Every structure is written in C-alpha cells, then in structure tokens.
C-alpha cells in the first residue's frame, strides 16, 4: 500500500527567534564576526592598495594608541585623545539611553549638544573674570539648562499633542545649528576666520583643569560619574522602571497607574540635560572653542552606541571605544598609505556591518531543511 503522507514542502532555510543565549555563546559569535570583518577588510585592502593587511591593522592600532617605538608608553597623546573622544561619545550615548529605552526617538542629541556647547562658550567668554569654581558652576548649569530646554520642547508637544518626536527633535537640530552659526559670527575671532578660535588661550579660564597632571582626566571623571549614575538610575530606581514600562507599552503603563506624560517629559529633561552636559565637556574639556561642527555627527553615532549596548551604560563604554578606535585607525591609515578618507571609511563600514550583522545571529537562529527519512 502506497504511503500517502502529504508532506508540506519545507523551505530550505527558516529563521526563528532564539529564546536566549548564554553569554559565552554570544561572545563567541561576536568574536567570530569581528574576525570575519577583519578578513574581509584584509581582502579589500589588498585588492585596493596591495599592502599587507596586517601592517594596515597595526597602523590602525597605532593610530589609536600611539606608535610602537622602543620607548613606547601606553598613556601617550594618542591614547589620551582616544580616551577623550570615547568619553565624549559615551556621554552622549548615556544621555540618549533613557529616551530610547522609553522608545522616544530622540534624534536631537546633535542640537542639544550644540546648545550646551554654546551656553558653555558664552560663560567662558562673558564670565571669565569669575572665580574658577563659580565659573564652572555657571557653565555646568547653563549647559544642562540649554540641553534640557532643547529636549523639553519636543517632549512637551509629544506628551500634550502626541506630535512626532523624530521629526520634532530632528528639526530642533537645524534651529540649533543656525543659532550656533549666529553665535559663531558674533564671537568670531579673528574676524574673517569664520571661527571663534580658541577661547581664553592664555588664562585658560573655563578650561577643564588637569587632574593628576593629566589634561583629560577631568573628562573621564565627569563622564564616568554620569555613566555609573545612569546605570543605577535605569536599573534600580523606580523612575528607571517606569521608563522601561512606558517603553514596552504605553497602555500597560497607563493601566499600571503610571503618569505617562510626566514620565515622557521628565525622562526627556534628563536626556537633554546630559546631552547638554556633553556640550559642556566638548567645549570646556576638549575643543575650547565652539563651531557648528562641535557635535560633529556624534549625536547620531551615539544612537548606534546606545542601541548596540541595549542601554547598558557599561557596555556602551566598550562600543564607544570600538567606534572611536575605528575612526582613529582609519585616519592613521589614510595618512600613512596616502589614501583619501573614503577607503578608511569603507573599512569602518565593513567592520560595523559585521558587528551589526552578528546581532542578527545572536537574536535569531537559522534552521536548514533536514532530509526526512522515508517512513514505511
């Protein structure tokens, strides 16, 4: 008797969501993805410029952490600049974390940073005769306030009239850029340069003071404090829990008696304030000047950082470091092998693609069609 089992044709490949994965397993996947990325980059580099990829990778490391000479010291200028830029990116990502965890699409970090930076620069220019401690208090408050105002407006409109926060925060960026241009023109120094130049170059009023003789130690202290604080806030405070609930489902939150409007506005105030504070760190702790490029796209890069880290502020440290490392490495190979920026951006792009791709394999599993044995 013929066996008539109607078998549905099974697709060659199925994708299913994974329940969860042990940490070591996801780590292995991530490491494999980075190794694969480096291999692909190596092939691309070799095809394009015929240079030994290992040499290129070495240059990347040197670009971020200094040239390996006999008297190599780890904490050299390049390492410190890498640390400084990592802290900057981290600070913004930490600022964005509560907003994104609440599923509030704060695309406006760029503008919030700029406003914080403008406020800081204003203090440095107009209040430079204040005693240093007072000046720092003013700069701190001004930058926090400026960033908070810039995020308060979209939050208010979202809470009251349910406007689209993505568009609103994005447009606030353009307003901030124009305002910054206005202040750059106002403070232009020297005239004709279209830049503000270095503010207080001789007296260093309003510059982050060196700590333990290290120029950028202050940046590390400020940003790490915020990072730890935000971790605790999100994970262990009641407000942090409310953010998570609102992010998962506004209706659930409402049902649980959470005042959603209040949470939205409060969270965005915090988010904007920290982004404003990053403007303070950028101006006072790094550039000592203000321009429309003070934010430099980091407001957008930080979104990647926040999401990749799944809002865990400690994971953000690693991801910020990776992105800054790639950037510094790219600059170094461009200079060393006389390439233009685009080749190095390609390398960065390939590595990021693989890292993002690894998330897919961590969250989903692939099921191949198995060959069924004939059933008699």
């Amino acid at each position, binding site marked *: 008797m013929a066996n008539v089992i109607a078998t549905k044709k099974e697709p060659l490949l199925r994708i299913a969501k994974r329940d969860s994965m042990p940490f070591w397993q996801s780590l292995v996947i991530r490491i494999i993805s980075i190794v694969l990325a480096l291999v692909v980059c190596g092939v691309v580099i070799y095809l394009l410029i015929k240079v030994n990829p290992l040499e290129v990778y070495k240059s990347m490391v040197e670009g971020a952490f200094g040239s390996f000479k006999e008297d190599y010291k780890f904490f050299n200028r390049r390492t410190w600049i890498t640390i400084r830029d990592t802290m900057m990116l981290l600070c913004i990502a930490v600022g964005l974390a509560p907003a994104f965890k609440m599923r509030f699409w704060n695309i406006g970090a760029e503008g919030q940073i700029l406003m914080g930076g403008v406020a800081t620069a204003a203090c440095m220019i107009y209040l430079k005769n204040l005693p240093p401690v007072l000046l720092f208090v003013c700069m701190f408050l001004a930058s926090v306030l400026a960033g908070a105002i810039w995020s308060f407006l979209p939050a208010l409109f979202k809470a009251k009239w349910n406007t689209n926060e993505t568009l609103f925060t994005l447009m606030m960026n353009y307003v901030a850029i124009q305002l910054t241009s206005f202040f750059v023109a106002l403070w232009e120094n020297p005239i004709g340069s279209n830049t503000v130049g270095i503010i207080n170059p001789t007296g260093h009023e309003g510059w982050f003071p060196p700590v333990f003789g290290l120029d950028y130690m202050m940046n590390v202290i400020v940003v790490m404090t915020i990072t730890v604080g935000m971790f605790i806030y999100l994970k262990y405070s009641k407000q942090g829990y409310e953010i998570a609930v609102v992010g998962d489902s506004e209706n659930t939150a409402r049902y649980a008696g959470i005042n959603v409007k209040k949470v939205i506005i409060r969270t965005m105030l915090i988010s904007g304030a920290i982004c404003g504070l990053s403007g303070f760190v950028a101006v006072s702790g790094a550039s000592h*000047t203000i321009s429309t490029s003070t934010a430099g796209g980091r407001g957008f890069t930080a979104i990647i950082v926040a999401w990749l880290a799944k809002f865990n502020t400690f994971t953000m440290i690693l991801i910020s470091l990776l992105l800054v490392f790639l950037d510094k490495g790219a600059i170094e190979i461009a200079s060393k092998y*006389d390439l*233009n920026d685009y080749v190095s951006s390609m390398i960065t792009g390939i590595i990021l693609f693989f890292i993002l791709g690894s998330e897919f394999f961590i969250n989903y599993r692939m099921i191949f069609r198995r060959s069924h044995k004939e059933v008699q």
Partner: protein
Amino acid sequence: MKKLIALLLAVLMVVSLAACGATTDATKDQADTNSDFKMGVILIGDENEGYTYAHIQGIKDAAKALGLADDQIIWKYTIPEDETCYDTAADLADQGCNLVVSNSYGHQSHMQQAATEFPDVTFIAMTGDTAKASGLPNFCNAFTAVYESRFVSGVVAGMKIKELVENDKLEKDNFDADGNVKVGYVGAYPYAEVKSGYTAFFLGIKSVYDKVAMSVQFTNSWFDLTKEGETANQLISQGCVIIGQHADSTGAPSAVQAALEAGDTCYSIGYNIDMLEVAPQGALTSATNCWSVYYTEAIGLAMKGEAVPTNWAKGYADDAVAITPLGESVAPGTQEKVDETIAAIKAGEIHVFDTDTFTVKGEKVEAAFATDTDGDFIPDADEAVFDGYFHESYFQSAPCFALDIDGITLLN
C-alpha cells in the same frame, strides 16, 4: 553630480597649474638632503578640492626641488578648523616633525597653541595673520602677493572692455547713468583679503579703461557652486560685462558661459584655477598663486635648520603669482599688454595701490594703517601709505587693504 564636478575640477587644476610650472630647479643642487628632516602637512580638504590641491601640488614640487623623500612628509587630509587641528599638529610634533604647515586660515589659533607647546618645531599657518603679534619665534605666516596677479587679470578685463566699447558691441544697459561700463564681482566675505583682491582687480581694469564702475556681491561662503552661479546671473542681468570672482568654485564662469551662449555680452575672470574648461568662450583668464615658490623657500630653510620668515609675501618679482593661460575671447594685443604690465610690476614701475589712481570719498588717500594691534579688527598701527602708494602685504603677509574706494559699490 558632485563627484563629476570634483573630477572636472581636478582635471582643470592639473591644466591650470601648468601656469606656474617653472619652479626653481636651481635649488636642487644646494639642498642638503637631510634625511632626519620630517615635515607634517595639515590640510583643510584633499586633492578633490581646488584650494587644497594647489597647496599639495606646491609642496610636492618643493619636495622634488629639495630632494625630499616621500616618507619625509606626513599628509593629514580633511582636518577641520577645530581642536582636531591642534591634536594633529601636536601629534605630528610627537612623530618627530621639524616643520608643520597648515593651509587654512581657521587652523591658525590651533597652530599657535601647538607652537607655544613645541618651541623646537616650526609651525606655519598659511594665509594667517597673528604670527607677528604672537611673538613666537617658531610660528610663521605666509601669503602670496596675489593682489598683483589680480591687477594683471584686471588688465586683461580692461583690454576686453576697451575692445567691446571701440567696436560698439555694448548696449545701453551695459553702461550706468554716468556712462561707466558695468563690471560685476562675486566676492566671498566682506573681509580685507577679498576687499584687497577686488580693489586690485578694479584698479587693473582702470589702468587700461578708466570709465568703469564695479558692483560687488558677497556670497558669504568660500565655496558654493550654486550661490556663485546665481550671484553671477544677477550681476549679468544688471548689465555687467565682466564678472570677476574671489570664491573658489566654477559657479560664476559656468553662468557666464551659459549667458554668453544665450546672447548676452559678458566675460569671466576666475580665481585659483583655469576656467577655460567650463567656460571656453566666456573665460578670459584667472588670477592664481604659485605656492611652490614659498614652500621651496620655507622648507629649504627649515631643512637647513634656519629660521623661516615670520611673514612672507612675494609676488611677480619671485614668480609666486601668475595668471592662467589666456582664453580665445581676449582682445587682440592682450598678451603684449600683460607682459608689459608684469614687467612694470617686477621693475617697481607700477604699484598696484598707487594713491594717484584711486580716491576715497572723492579725496586722495594720504594715510592708512595696515596692522591691528589691539584686537578690534580696525587697523591702528603701521602707516602703509608712503612713497606714493599703499604698501599691501608689507608689514604682514596677509592682505590688509580694506578701504572702500570710489567706483566700487557693495550690493550686500
């Protein structure tokens, strides 16, 4: 589209730089090939951008003349005018560079900061103006006397205007109420560098044909293809016969070529690069810099461990400026007139800002300061008018002539 323009520009520049091809081969023998010497170059753009390309080419020519090997020069492209510039300058010093050059004005204050920190390294902020005031022995500025080549490009324009008037080619709206021929100018910013440039250009025209009036419109950008084109169109529609420019794109010459093809009478004088590629009939010539002259001198000095001049500004006498090859539309006899003018400038018979050739509010200029010492951007020191002319780029390399002379109207 942008890529295409970039490519086109690159091709243009290769052609135009042939204008200053003859560099000093003589220095080749005297250069002691100092293999320990290293220099760093901080550039605002890369080879796809006209201004930076000219600097790269200048440095490469200088390196060739001085016998400098490729690995003795560290290039840093697309460095913005912020702390990145300082970081890069300090990093180059860390890498053992003896000389660091930056090519954009906005790099200056960051370069100065690095210069205070690394007294053994020489820092040159091209086109800058604070070296003298800073008092730092290792911090220098340099600029060419480009006003001389602007004057000569004005002579080319003047010859054309003269030809058009004599052959009765102009219409009523090409003249203003007083019978002056209208000239237009697309300027970047209302700063001394631009003012000095268009005034020199205007005086060049007047040295050939006196009855002209010039309108200047600023774009408030150094490089804006669209805006420069639109501005040129406005000026053409107002009846301007010549469109000069102090902005880096090919926007204005392209607009001129299009208008010319549509039946208007107008011609372009460009800047930095040869414009014949985009405006074969419309372009007459361009004023340009030959940076290799400076770089050969400065790098040569630095290699020998000697001091680089704090302020450097040289012109035709040292072949540091030039005009690009003349276009097919120039008036007959232009080349002869140009050669004659250049010879006279070299011999010191023509001074561009001769106070007999212009007036301010109807009066001859007897006194004008060149340098600002108190930081309010109004010159208050160094009397520049003596021996019958304003001494441009005499006290400092950056242009400082900022008088509004009669005959030039600022539209914005």
